């Protein structure tokens, strides 16, 4: 693969850039006074009221068609919106997954009735979704999914268990990948995506606390859950192809670059208030800026390719691996900067933010496909696998 062809330089068109000012003004008032350690939750912060307020602004489902309650805007407009949300540390978790994955999935593969039901509710910030992929024995190797739905006279009967399902305890639906035909030996064949109403009988949701004390991911048990026939999205048995088609959207966005941005901004703000910064701190600030600039250019290049309907799986994996590496490096660089000078003394709030990001940083390269999986995809793109 020629390194010249993978990423081109693109600039955000002025009409999309124009979205930035109103979004920023809205966020400044909505997030006034929220501490950095809270804002550092970034796209893991959950606030249903905030999501509904964002929906009222028309800022959920920005790229979705107007006919389904979307705004019909470009992938660049969405890029601008996401950047502003992440830079501000807005609590976007409630609607994030539905906006990024479930709504586009339903638009692409769903029935007209599914589109008409789900997409406008998602765009209004009223219907939140979770994505059920991992199982106790099935992580990166999703072909091993054991949860199973069997056809019944009225639809499907679902049994099984999902784990690490973000927001299952507060989402309305789960888009889940389950086996509907064949056996695990059939690998990716026979998997399907079902939209499960989480209020149905037979579903038990148990939140799992993360190491910082937050509860965002869950274990979900399905025991003889009766689903209607129209719970199936797309084609029976084609779930794997449907899932992988969406991955480039999930892997290359600004959320793979900016997870430590609130921390970096908080550090720089304190650095500015102190005496003239030490050379060591300047060097670290410059390193962070340069790395972020190149990653942002790469992410924009992928957004442009996605906007043209291409499938940049190689490029998206590259952005995710390099982007999460950058996010994970920031806490260590800032600790180095603290050591480079006795002044300014970091505030308690900054140290708490650093502690939070440091502890959660390992998850940055786990969610959405692990580092090793990304590198496997890249190796294939390079022609060595």
């Amino acid at each position: 693969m020629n390194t010249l062809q993978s990423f081109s330089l693109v600039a955000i068109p002025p009409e999309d850039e124009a979205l930035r000012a109103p979004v920023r003004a809205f966020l400044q008032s909505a997030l006034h006074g929220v501490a950095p350690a809270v804002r550092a939750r970034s796209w893991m912060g959950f606030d249903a009221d905030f999501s509904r307020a964002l929906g009222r602004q028309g800022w959920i489902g920005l790229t979705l068609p107007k006919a389904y309650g979307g705004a019909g805007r470009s992938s660049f407009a969405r890029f601008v919106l996401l950047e502003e949300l992440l830079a501000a540390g807005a609590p976007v978790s409630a609607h994030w997954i539905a906006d990024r994955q479930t709504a586009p999935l339903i638009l692409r593969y769903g029935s007209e009735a599914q589109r008409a039901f789900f997409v406008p509710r998602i765009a209004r910030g009223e219907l939140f979704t979770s994505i059920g992929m991992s199982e106790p024995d099935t992580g990166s190797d999703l072909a091993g999914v054991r949860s199973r739905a069997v056809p019944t006279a009225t639809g499907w009967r679902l049994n099984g268990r999902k784990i690490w399902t973000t927001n299952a305890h507060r989402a309305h639906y789960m888009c889940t990948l389950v086996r509907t035909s064949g056996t695990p030996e059939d690998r990716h064949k026979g998997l399907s995506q079902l939209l499960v109403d989480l209020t149905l009988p037979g579903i038990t949701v148990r939140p799992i606390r993360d190491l910082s004390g937050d509860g965002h991911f869950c274990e979900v048990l399905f025991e003889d859950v009766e689903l209607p026939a129209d719970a199936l999205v797309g084609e029976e048995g084609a779930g794997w192809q449907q899932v992988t088609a969406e991955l480039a959207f999930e892997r290359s966005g600004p959320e793979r670059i900016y997870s430590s941005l609130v921390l970096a901004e908080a550090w720089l703000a304190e650095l500015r208030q102190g005496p003239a910064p030490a050379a060591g701190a300047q060097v670290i600030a410059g390193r962070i800026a340069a790395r972020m600039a190149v990653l942002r250019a790469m992410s924009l290049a992928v957004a442009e390719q996605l906007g043209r309907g291409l499938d940049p799986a190689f490029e998206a994996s590259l952005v995710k691996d390099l982007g999460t590496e950058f996010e994970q490096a920031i806490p260590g660089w800032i600790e180095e900067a603290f050591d480079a000078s006795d002044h300014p003394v970091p505030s308690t709030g900054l140290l708490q933010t650093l502690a939070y990001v440091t502890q959660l940083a390992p998850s940055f390269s786990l969610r959405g496909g692990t580092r090793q999986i990304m590198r496997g995809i890249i190796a294939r793109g390079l022609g060595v696998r």
Partner: protein
Amino acid sequence: MDDTLLDEFERPLRALCTDDTLRAVEAGAPTDALWQAIDALGYTDALVAEAQGGAGLSLRELFALVFAAGKAGLGLPFGETAVARALLAAAGHGERRGAGPIAIAPGVPGDAGSVVCRDVPGGALAHQVLVSWQGEWLLLPRDRATATPGAWRPQASATLQWHTPDLAVVRFDAGAADAVALCNALHAAGMAGAMARVLELVTDYARDRKQFGRPIAQFQAVQQELSVLGEQAHSATLAARLGCSAAGVQPDPLLAATAKLRACEAARSVCAIAHAVFGAIGITEEHVLGLYTRRLHEWRAVPGTETQCARLLGEALLAQPDGLFDFVRLRLSAPALA
């Protein structure tokens, strides 16, 4: 014009830059014939205005050519010559440019009023050096300088010292020009090209070389390393594009520093992984890999170094009121195409 120019340049360039030729250049063989052949391809006047007989291209367009030169392993300062010819022509000194290669370097004051250019890549092969010196450009003949062999490429590069700036055959106002920014942008592009070639060499080798009964590319441990190398090479290429994104001849100093910093970071990992995969054959004189990794190390070591670039960016970030995100967005982004 875009990267289509690349093909037209790359093919004849690679034919000229055989492994033997590259090794000979590094060993001090005469380079006049090689330079004449490259100059005859017609790309060295790419940035000179059309009215002055050039192609009137921008640095943004030159990028692909400098990348190609780096990828071909060309040891002569091709990109520097193209820029120097454009600057000289624009200042009305086109007739003084000479036919030979021109290096570009920042000058610093040496002993007794002398001008010193440290670690100039290709400085021993250039006929002249365009030196930024106290707000001016000086075109200095290389044969009037005292040369100290370069640490990495003793026959090709050199630290050069002229006993007085008065040895300049041409001097003109530098305006906002900055030799460090130009070197950063051009070197980053050359480095990205060199890393692309290393990526090619190492993936080819991993597919051919068999151990334990199969090509080493089939081992997951090797694949993961090659992926990291590929990521670094791709990222450095886009960074270099960003560094060279100016619509004129002069790069934006902050974008150029971003490009060089990213290229230097990437080069460390690219060199280490490439040599690890190649094993012993990669550290022989006979194998071409060493020529490329040596070039990369030299580029890392010359002004502006990784730390200098990072410091420039950090100072600029902290000297203005915006936060990191807005600084990156407003100051470190590609300008829209006109």
